[in-house]
């Protein structure tokens, strides 16, 4: 169910220990536990042996087999309990991974607030490049709640064209002015912001691309120098595995 959310090494380990990683709701008697380990492997019964070997030899053989079996059982039990512990740890991590809501004192909760559906709504979404408010997709509660930041602060964006830290917030990583959908501004302020960004670019305060091409080139060189050359990566290894789109 949730196994696809596990990182790959976890997955491999989990599947090696047990074919199916059970949840806490799984019937307990199906789980291997240190309390009721599965029956130890069958020890070969020495009785049906018909070989005419001396008695002392037979006794030695029996005791050695018994010792072996005992040691094997102990080892198996230890391994199983270790596995059960690992498994329990994985189960806890896996369940906890789904608890997204961080309750604050004073919150009211009803049973549905603890449900997986509701918890999933509190899941942090991947930030889309430092946009101001556009993390939630349109139609989300977040989108309904959004307010124009310039209205809240009582600032005219056109006065802030020299404030490049504000202006960069409204520019994408490729140097494009962000859409209203992402900025959450009302029409008037969006036009003012766009004008202020163009003005800042025109004055040379803001690059028209996110970073200067020379800086990007330098960064790439730096990366290639510092990064250890790996085997089996071919010629890309020497370049640091980094190539800008557009292929200079």
């Amino acid at each position: 169910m949730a196994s696809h959310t596990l990182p790959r090494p976890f997955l491999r380990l989990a599947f090696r220990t047990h074919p199916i990683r059970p949840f806490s709701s799984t019937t307990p008697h199906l789980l291997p536990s240190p309390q009721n380990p599965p029956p130890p492997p069958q020890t070969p019964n020495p009785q049906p042996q018909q070989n005419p070997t001396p008695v002392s030899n037979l006794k030695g053989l029996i005791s050695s087999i018994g010792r072996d079996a005992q040691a094997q059982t102990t080892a198996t039990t230890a391994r199983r309990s270790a596995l059960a512990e690992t498994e329990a740890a994985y189960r806890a991590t896996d369940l906890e991974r789904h608890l997204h809501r961080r309750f604050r004192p004073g919150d009211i909760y009803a049973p549905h607030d603890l449900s997986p559906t509701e918890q999933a709504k509190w899941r942090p979404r991947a930030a889309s490049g430092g946009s101001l408010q556009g993390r939630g997709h349109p139609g989300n509660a977040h989108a309904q709640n959004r307010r124009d930041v310039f209205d809240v602060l009582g600032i005219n964006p056109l006065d802030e064209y020299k404030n490049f830290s504000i202006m960069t917030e409204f520019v994408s990583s490729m140097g494009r002015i962000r859409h209203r959908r992402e900025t959450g501004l009302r029409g008037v302020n969006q036009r003012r912001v766009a004008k202020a960004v163009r003005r800042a670019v025109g004055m040379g305060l803001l690059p028209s691309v996110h970073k200067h091409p020379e800086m990007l080139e330098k960064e790439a060189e730096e990366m290639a120098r510092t990064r250890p050359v790996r085997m089996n990566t071919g010629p890309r290894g020497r370049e640091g595995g980094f190539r800008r789109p557009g292929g200079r």
Partner: protein
Amino acid sequence: MASKKLSPTASLLKNSRLFSLPPPLPRPSHDFTATSNFNSDTATLPYPTHASIETTQPSLYRGDWGLKRPLPQKSTANTSTPSIRIDDIDSIDHITEFESASDHTLTLRKWQEIGLPLSMPVKQRGASVSDSTLNTRATPPTSVFESTYDNTERRNDQGDVRRWKFKGPWLAGKTEGEFDLYLERHIKQRKLEFRDFLRGRLVKERRLDQQRKAQERGDEFDGQIEITETDIDLYLKQLRHDEVRLYMLVEDFLDLPISGDPQQANATFVVMMDSDQGPPKTHLSAGLSYLRTASHMTNHPVLGPMEEEPPVQARVLRPQYTRGLAKGFCAILGIGGVAADDVTMRTAFRNAREKTGILNFDAETEGGAKLWVLPDRASIDAHGRIKLHTLRVTTADEAIYQNVVPEPVAGKQVPVNPAFSTMPRLDSSRPSRLGNSPAYGLRFDDSNQNPKTASPLDVPQNSDDSVQSIVDLVGPHRGK
């Protein structure tokens, strides 16, 4: 109740759901912090914004909620707690929009079952509130219904009083933009009104002045005070250089909540202002409880009057240490639908052995980790949220309600009351099992195979051990 003078139609309208449903409150304000970037529009709000309505059982099965059209049975009658809230009584699509209101309805019911009175908020210094400030044993709570606080009128016979309700806004809580908007929309048009207000003040001041002068001369002043427009202009100019007086006049005119020390005489504020909370948004009880004190005693069916209220089972909503997140300040508990800080953990129980699920996430317990707590103090903060303080329950208390025999304390000698040990059993003719009788709130299990979880009262008759075990369990201080 509609008066008799009303026509039948008017009375019908007045008693209808259409007119009795109050307009909804605004949703809790959205703050711009990073953590609140992710939220759910279907999550239960910290306070109810809509009135929840119920209907009688026969009407429920007809779908009759007193609204314009019957509501579908499938979504209303298929629950044990049918209560709804109306989002839109008649939408443009000719649909009555409603949803279940059982979240807040049941929370209120649970709250009333806990029976905790609401008290004045505790003065907070930053985020850290020590357990001793919150603990009602250390600092006794003040009821929100005390006449010194529970006022809405500005002044009574004795003069100005503290109150919780103001006509004006809390200016310090407004952002720059909101403040500009407030000036634009509400203040600009009241310029003339303020001038009239100043005229009244000036007349009062001049009259007092004239009266004082006349008194010094030895006669009485009962003349009229003439104020011209130039007088008011001059007064305004004077006021601009006397900021303190001007602020006081503006506060009086706009009825702003005074942000001063509540200990001072002129402070009208009931909530402490040294946090960024502002004046209360609602009455400090929020209608959750109308109890004035918690000075009542629970009577246990077997053990008699109890020192403590019965504990409540709390759910661990967030353990202190969570995966991938920073270490929490303390665990968050859910008590009867209300999330609260587990403050006790930080102080008294810091070094004690914590139960599983409080420090770290517990994946093993069915339904999540739970513990027994004692709701101690509750107040409503300025945002209308419930602030609940709980205490941990002692093992003996827990045992009474949880049906578990605690481990005996070494070296503890409890004197046995001889009268108690020789008390004849009234039902000695048959094997006595309290578990078979109605339990009066005690959950005694009949199927006790495990002696560890056996009922403390389910013991052989006429045995001294049995009495000893009960006294051990309860302790000598429990009964009053």
